[in-house]
């Protein structure tokens, strides 16, 4: 039982990461290899402000989020006006820079040794509520004008600005929010796993998050969420399969990209109202049946 609770915790933590890659890559079409760096930034900020400066864990997490937003703005301002491929390269550079910085400021960060002995403050309930709230916010943003504007930007930036969408401001908002949530999730991670080190989330991990969004379907938040849950649960439960685990997963990814271009879930979106409508539609017939 403990094992499954543990798997669920880790799965949900990673799912928070994926949910906020979704608006960036799925909606706006920006590829960032730096999301891992924001996660590490959040984890380290929270851990250091708790252990070295003795702040309350809640305040430590708030610090992490604020720093995430600030660094997100710093990286976004000069780079989001560039073409998308340059943006990708710069976020990659940022990710490597963050790793280097953590290794070189060993007095504060413990360098390659990482930081151990962080107390476990965050457990399953906190993580589950966070996932629910973040998922709700994200699905609202996707449903309303903001999300549609982002999709318009992904499809055609020039046409988007020609119909009056402020492309830069949208990209900035998405990037900063995603930095904030990544840092938040990183802070939760630190208080849950209790040990952090600089190589926790390198750019390969960031790329993995993007791949999950692609396999789930760029147009489907439900897809991103479910694929991430399945992927990380699968990863933990099938740990015994060793190297073969990655081979199987890689094979599945290739199959999906080849045969379902739009991802596993395509444009499909889970919706409570749709289910209600479906039930109400069915209701009269079932009553007549009695």
């Amino acid at each position, binding site marked *: 039982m403990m094992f499954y609770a543990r798997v669920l915790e880790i799965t949900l933590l990673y799912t928070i990461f994926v949910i906020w890659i979704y608006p960036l890559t799925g909606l706006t079409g920006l590829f960032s290899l730096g999301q891992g760096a924001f996660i590490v930034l959040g984890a380290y900020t929270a851990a250091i402000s708790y252990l070295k400066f003795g702040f309350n864990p809640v305040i430590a997490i708030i610090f992490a989020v604020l720093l995430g937003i600030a660094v997100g703005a710093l990286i976004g301002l000069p780079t989001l006006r560039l073409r998308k491929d340059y943006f990708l390269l710069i976020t990659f550079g940022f990710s490597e820079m963050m790793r280097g910085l953590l290794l070189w400021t060993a007095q504060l960060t413990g360098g390659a040794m990482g930081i151990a002995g962080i107390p476990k403050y965050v457990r399953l309930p906190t993580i589950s509520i966070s996932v629910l709230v973040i998922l709700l*916010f994200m699905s*609202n*943003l996707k*449903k*309303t*004008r*903001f999300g*549609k*504007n982002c*999709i*318009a930007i*992904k*499809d*055609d930036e*020039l*046409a*988007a*600005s*020609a*119909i*009056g*969408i*402020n*492309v830069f401001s949208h990209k900035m*908002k998405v990037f900063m929010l995603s930095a904030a949530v990544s840092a938040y999730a990183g802070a939760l991670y630190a208080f849950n796993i209790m040990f952090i080190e600089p190589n926790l989330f390198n750019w390969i991990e960031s790329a993995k998050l993007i791949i999950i969004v692609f396999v789930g379907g760029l*147009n489907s938040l439900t897809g991103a969420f479910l694929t991430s849950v399945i992927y990380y649960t699968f990863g933990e439960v099938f740990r015994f399969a060793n190297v073969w685990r990655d081979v199987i997963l890689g094979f599945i990814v290739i199959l999906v990209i080849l045969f379902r271009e739009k991802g596993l879930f395509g444009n499909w979106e889970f919706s409570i109202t749709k289910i209600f409508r479906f039930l109400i539609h069915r209701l009269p017939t079932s009553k007549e049946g009695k």
Partner: protein
Amino acid sequence: MEVLKVDSISKNFGGVQAVKDYSMIQNDNIITGIIGPNGAGKTTIFNLISGVQQLSSGKVFFNGNNITKNSSFERTRMGISRTFQNIRLFNNLNVIDNLKVAYGFKTEYNFWQQMINSGKVRRVEKEVHEFAMSYLTDFGLEKYKNYKPDSLAYGLRRRLEFARALIVNPKLVLLDEPAAGLNPQEIHDLIDLISRIQEEQKLSIILVEHHMELVMKICTRIHVLDFGQKIAEGKPEEIRKNEKVLQAYLGDEV
């Protein structure tokens, strides 16, 4: 009343002078046509007026305000709408959402209200939906509201892009080759549509077009470009007889 004033604008691409010292004054409630051989700089002029490209020199005024430094989306918000030569619709959004995103900047709720999907957002969105539906009906596209634009026939896509440019109630509309790729019947319908909407909304329209019948029929004034320069300007019947124009189109030995 003067809507748009373009004051000797130029545009260089490296060594190539795409547009040279072009000036025009556009009043409200008229249709102006810009014609000229391929590569004469017609689309570049549209890009400069709508702010898609930055001009090398000159000034652009809209309703008396200098908008030379304003970016594309700001000019659209002021009331300059445009369509594109190669249709640019959002293929991941369905037909009605294509109109709704265009109307978006006129709605009055902020980012955080959208995040919690507040009552105001839902109320406004419902109004926007109905408004967009009435537009689709007006353009004969209501059947296709849930289609993706790339599954529509070419003529319908042109019409949708036109609807998208008009839904924000602009003062000036730039149409870049609205008849390109349409069959004779569709061109006929398009002429009716443009004239009807222009009359209804008292729009000011500038259009670039190769289809002479359309230009001669609906334009009140015509500008002729060649190698980035204006070589003639006047009423359709004047342009038809202008020697310089005939030379540019047919060569010297006429």
